[in-house]
């Protein structure tokens, strides 16, 4: 199939072209609308964009204020651009532009936060740069436990998802996380959980990324470590592990740290449970602002 075609593609009926386009991707469809006016017409058609929208978009949209947009393409792009508040403002919904997969963020109010209702430990405030009306402010705890759940029926089938804690340090009073390993997990509730450890201190990640990490603790910055934390995390080998273990900055200027990944086969509906725990050390920590847990498709899996 390498020689140029004699048969004219222009002869294909627009319906056939629309059908072919619907098996590519939103991006391909938009680019290929440049080919000819027939292609553009096919590329704009509802038949194509209907295929990229999730099959239950009507139900999802009914949970939000009514939207009326002229075409399915407009609807698709709208759902990709801005997160939509659903479930009484407790969750947000968005489409991933590349393949139209569903993304959600569970707001802090939608999570189970141990001691979350005790003002001495956690407070609830509003921040202008958060998408939800409230964020949870950690003042101080020794028992950190945050859990969230989402039904896999809400997710796109045949998709690899990643879960992320969306948070940032409180400019005043962020402490106790710089040498503190935090356990994160993801898995089917009541089933097997994948556990990892991360740090919630982005500054630590930055330090390690730009310094040569000695194999043994005891030189340079790690001198302090010997006195402050007798148990140091195992030395990090390379940038990839560093990336996974430390928070990254998001486009919305919050931080996120990956809790793990989960492949949704789309068969039976199950409850997916995600968690963040630091309950072993007994050390006090505080100064976190938690917006929520985001669940979105991943491009490449963790090794």
């Amino acid at each position: 199939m390498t020689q140029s075609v004699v048969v004219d593609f222009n002869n294909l009926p627009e319906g056939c072209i629309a059908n072919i386009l619907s098996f590519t991707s939103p991006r391909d469809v938009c680019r290929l609308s440049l080919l000819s006016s027939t292609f553009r017409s096919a590329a704009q058609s509802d038949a194509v964009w209907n295929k990229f929208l999730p099959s239950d978009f009507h139900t999802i949209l009914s949970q939000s204020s009514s939207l009326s947009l002229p075409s399915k393409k407009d609807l698709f792009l709208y759902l990709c651009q801005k997160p939509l508040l659903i479930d009484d403002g407790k969750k947000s919904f968005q489409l991933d532009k590349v393949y139209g997969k569903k993304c959600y963020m569970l707001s802090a109010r939608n999570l189970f936060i141990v001691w979350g209702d005790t003002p001495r430990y956690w407070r609830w405030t509003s921040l202008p740069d958060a998408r939800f009306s409230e964020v949870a402010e950690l003042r101080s705890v020794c028992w950190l436990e945050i859990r969230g759940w989402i039904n896999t029926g809400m997710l796109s089938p045949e998709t690899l998802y990643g879960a992320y804690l969306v948070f940032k340090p409180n400019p005043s009073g962020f402490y106790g996380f710089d040498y503190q390993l935090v356990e994160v997990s993801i898995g089917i509730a009541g089933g097997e959980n994948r556990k990892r450890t991360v740090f919630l201190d982005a500054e630590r990640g930055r330090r390690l990324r730009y310094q040569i990490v000695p194999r043994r603790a005891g030189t340079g910055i790690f001198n302090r470590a010997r006195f402050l934390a007798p148990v140091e995390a195992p030395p990090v080998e390379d940038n990839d592990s560093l990336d996974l273990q430390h928070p990254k900055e998001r486009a919305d200027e919050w931080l996120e740290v990956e809790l793990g990944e989960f492949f949704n086969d789309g068969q039976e509906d199950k409850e997916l449970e995600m968690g963040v725990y630091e309950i072993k050390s007994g050390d006090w920590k505080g100064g976190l602002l938690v917006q929520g847990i985001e669940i979105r498709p991943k491009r490449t899996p963790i090794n």
Partner: protein
Amino acid sequence: MGEKGESSKSAMLKHAEEEELNTKRLKTVEGEESNMVEETENIKLKTSDEIIFEVEPSIVKEMVTIQTFIEDNNNETSIPIPLPNVTSNTLRRILEFKARGFDEEFVKTLGMDEVFELILAANYLNMKTLLDILTKIIADFIKNKSVEFVRKFFNIVNDFTPEEEAKIREENAWAFEGFECDD
């Protein structure tokens, strides 16, 4: 009387034998689809180049256009049904494809011209399974390719003015950002 009785008896026997033979033939071709067919006659299809094919009714059932035509004409199947948009080569390919259980790998061995002819024929005959497979193959081929590549390969005439092109590019800017094609 006795003779008539004998001849009608043997006629019935012969008919029964024929029916059994036909059903057996269909069973061997169709495998598990042995319970559907009442008609035992093959359907005659005449391609654009005047060649007549005899096709099993179960295969014709997948050609929704033809099937509808037959039903609309009181199941009259003795005269050949004209297919002005399908050549004998294409119909032969379709039957071959069907006999191979719509094996995708087989399609990949065909030239693009043939694939196109097949799409046009499958579209005209309204054969969903075949059309879906062919559509997916072309879609896989054009995914992630540059506009220039697809245009050149399929000989698509660009009927946009430079201004129109610029406008479309701008409207869909996000689709071009950071795009690395595998031409």
